[in-house]
C-alpha cells in the first residue's frame, strides 16, 4: 500500500508551511502517530505525524522549502511496492494537485456561527460518529488552541471546538462573568447541536468550564479531560493574568505569552499580532477584565470544583513546568493523572502528539 504524506492544514487560516527538518530519512520505518518531519507556519511550528505505519520511501520536499497545504511531502509504503509503482503514484498525485492548488485556501474545514441564548457562538465541527467530544479553550484563547489536537482526535469521533463567550469570534458581552455563564453557553451549544451526552475536554479556564458543566449537568458528561486546568486549587499566576489583560502592544504582550510555552521561540511576531487582533476587538478588553476579576481576582482562583472530579472517568494532563497554574494541583485527584516533563501551560499545542495519544487511548476506554 502506497501512502502519500501531505502538508497538513493546522487551524483555519494555514495556507502553506515551511519544511523545517526531516526527522526520518528515506528507508526509515515510521509508526502511525510518529513524528516524521517538523513544519513551521507563520503562526507556529510543530511535527507532522505519520497517519499510517510503513517505510518512508521518498522525501519530496526539501528543508526550508515552503509548500501549500495539501502538497506532497513524502511517500510511505506499507508492505511492498516497486519504484515504478511509487513513481506512478507521485505522478498521479502531482497531476491532480496542480488543479486543486487554487482551492487550497478555501478547502478544508470552516467554522460555523450560531446564536445561543442571545449570543453568537462560533464552533468548528470535525469528524463523525462515536460519542462526540467538545473542546473548551482557556482565558484569552479560542478554538485554534486545539489546532494540533482536533484533527487527530476527529479521526475517531465527532469533535467540536467552540469559542467561549468573550473570546475568538463569539459574542463578546458577558453578563456576570461567572464560570456558570460560560458553562451555560457550552450547554446551550450542546442543545443546539442536539447532543445529549458528550466527552468534555478543557484547557486552563476551559477546564473550569468543563468541570462546571459536569457539576450542572452530570448526566450529559461521559468523561472529562482536564489539561492544565483551573478550578483545582487556589494558585494561579496573577501577574500573567493582569499583564495579559493590560497588554495592548507587541512589546507588552510578548513577555506575557512566553510564559505560556516551554519554548519561548514559539511566540512569533505573527502570534503576537494575531493575539493583538483579538484583543483590539470591541468588548474583548472588558470581557477579559471581567473574567479575570470574577474568577481569578488578585492571583487566587476563586472557584474550587475539585469535588466534581471522579464523578465521571477523568484524565488530567499537566506540563511539569507550567508557569500559569502549577502541576501540583493534579495531586490527589481521583483521575488518570499524566504529568508531561518539561512542558509548559500550552501543553496541548507544544506536546500535541503525546496529548493526542493520551486522549485517544482514554476516550477509547470510556
Amino acid at each position: 500500500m502506497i501512502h502519500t504524506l501531505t502538508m497538513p492544514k493546522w487551524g483555519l487560516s494555514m495556507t502553506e508551511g515551511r519544511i523545517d527538518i526531516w526527522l526520518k530519512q528515506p528507508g526509515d520505518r515510521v509508526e502511525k502517530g510518529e513524528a516524521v518531519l517538523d513544519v513551521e507556519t507563520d503562526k507556529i511550528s510543530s511535527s507532522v505525524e505519520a497517519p499510517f505505519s510503513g517505510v518512508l520511501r521518498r522525501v519530496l520536499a526539501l528543508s526550508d522549502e515552503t509548500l501549500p497545504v495539501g502538497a506532497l511531502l513524502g511517500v510511505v509504503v506499507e508492505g511492498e511496492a516497486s519504484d515504478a509503482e511509487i513513481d506512478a503514484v507521485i505522478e498521479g498525485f502531482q497531476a491532480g494537485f496542480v488543479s486543486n492548488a487554487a482551492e487550497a485556501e478555501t478547502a478544508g474545514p470552516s467554522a460555523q456561527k450560531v446564536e445561543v441564548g442571545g449570543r453568537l457562538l462560533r464552533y468548528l465541527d470535525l469528524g463523525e460518529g462515536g460519542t462526540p467530544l467538545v473542546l473548551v479553550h482557556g482565558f484569552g484563547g479560542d478554538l485554534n488552541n486545539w489546532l494540533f489536537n482536533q484533527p487527530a482526535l476527529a479521526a475517531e469521533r465527532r469533535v467540536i471546538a467552540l469559542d467561549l463567550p468573550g473570546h475568538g469570534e463569539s459574542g463578546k458581552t458577558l453578563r456576570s462573568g461567572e464560570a456558570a455563564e460560560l458553562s451555560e453557553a457550552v450547554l446551550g451549544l450542546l442543545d443546539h447541536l442536539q447532543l445529549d451526552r458528550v466527552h468534555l475536554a478543557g484547557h486552563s479556564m476551559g477546564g473550569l468550564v468543563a468541570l462546571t458543566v459536569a457539576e450542572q449537568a452530570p448526566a450529559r458528561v461521559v468523561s472529562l479531560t482536564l489539561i492544565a486546568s483551573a478550578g483545582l486549587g487556589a494558585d494561579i499566576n496573577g501577574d500573567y493574568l493582569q499583564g495579559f489583560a493590560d497588554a495592548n502592544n507587541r512589546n507588552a504582550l510578548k513577555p506575557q505569552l512566553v510564559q505560556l510555552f516551554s519554548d519561548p521561540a514559539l511566540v512569533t511576531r505573527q502570534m503576537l499580532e494575531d493575539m493583538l487582533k483579538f484583543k483590539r476587538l470591541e468588548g474583548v478588553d472588558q470581557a477579559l477584565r471581567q473574567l479575570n476579576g470574577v474568577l481569578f481576582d488578585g492571583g487566587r482562583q476563586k472557584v474550587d470544583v475539585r469535588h466534581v472530579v471522579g464523578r465521571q472517568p477523568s484524565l488530567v494532563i499537566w506540563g511539569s513546568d507550567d508557569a500559569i497554574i502549577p502541576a501540583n494541583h493534579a495531586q490527589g485527584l481521583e483521575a488518570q493523572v499524566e504529568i508531561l516533563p518539561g512542558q509548559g501551560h500550552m501543553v496541548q499545542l507544544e506536546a500535541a502528539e503525546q496529548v493526542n495519544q493520551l486522549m485517544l487511548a482514554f476516550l477509547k476506554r470510556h
Partner: protein
Amino acid sequence: MARKISYQQAINEALAQEMRRDQSVFIIGQDVSGGTGSPGEQDAWGGVLGVTKGLYPEFPERVLDAPLSEVGYVGMAVGAATRGMRPVCELMFVDFIGCCLDQLLNQAAKFRYMFGGKTTTPLVIRAMYGAGLRAAAQHSQMLTSMWTHIPGLKVVCPATPYDAKGMLIQAIRDNDPVIFLEHKMLYSLQGEVPEELYTVPFGEANFVREGRDVTLVTYGRMVHIALEAAANLARQDIDCEVLDLRTTSPLDEDSILESVEKTGRLVVIDESNPRCSIATDISALVAQRAFAALRAPIEMVTAPHTPVPFSDALEDLYIPDAAKIEAAVLKIADKRNAA
C-alpha cells in the same frame, strides 16, 4: 477570521459602523453620495470610485455632497469638528490639498496648541493617493511627507483591508485631525477583516515579515511590493524583515531601530518623491540613533524627483518595483552565502 473583503469595502464598513454607533459622525465631500439635491438618482456615485456607495440611503442627513470648493467644505468640516461633531471629510484626490491648505495647516493643526488644549478638532480627512492608475500628474501624488511635516496632524496610510478598517475607526474616534490616505491601487485588495468594531492604534509599526539579514521599511502600497521583493530574495538566501509603518505621524521609531539593530542593514522604500521624504527622514533617524549597528550604507528606493508621468511606460518606470528593491538589497546584503 475567515471573512475576506476588499480594502474599499473595509473603509465603507468602518464608516457605516461608526455612523451607526455615533450620531456626531458625518461625511462631507464631492460626490460622496452623488446626485444629492438634484432630481436625478441619489447615491449615484458614492465617491468618485464608489467607496462611500450605499451610505447615503442609510444616513441621508449625514452624507453631504459638497460644492466644488475645498476651501469651503473643508473649512466647514474643521469648524464642525471644533463644535462637537466628528466629520469625515473627503478630499477625493490628495493632490487637491492646495485648494484648502490653510484650513488644515494653519487652522485644524494648530487649534489644540494655540488654545492651550481647551479645544479639540476630531476631524478625518480621507483622500486617495499614489500612482499607478494612469491618472497623470495632478491625481497621482503621495504627499505623505508634506502632511507628516506638520505638527498637530496625524498621518495614516493603511496597507491592508484589516488596517484600513481598524485605523479609520481609530481616526474617527481620535480627538486630533487625522489625514487618512487610501492608496487607489489597493482598493480591490482582499483581506481578512473582522465583522466587529476594532481599532488599530497609531504609531505601532507592523512586522509583516520577520528576517535576519536586511530591514525593509515602508508603508502603504509599497508594503506589498517589498514583500514581493523579500520573497524573491529569500530564494537567494537573503532573509529580509519587512516593516509596515502604518502611520508616518506618529512614527514608530522604536520598531525601526529594533529591527535595524538586529539586521544592521536598511533599505527604505517610499513611493513618493525623494527629497525631504519619509525615506530621507527614516534614513536620518537610523543614521543618528543606530549608526553603530549599521554594517552597510543605508539604501533608499523611491520615485524620481519628477511629476508622475501620464505615459503608461513612464509611469511604470516611475513607481518603485520589486526589481529595484531587490537591486538595492543586493548592493548591501552580506555575501556570506554567495558561492
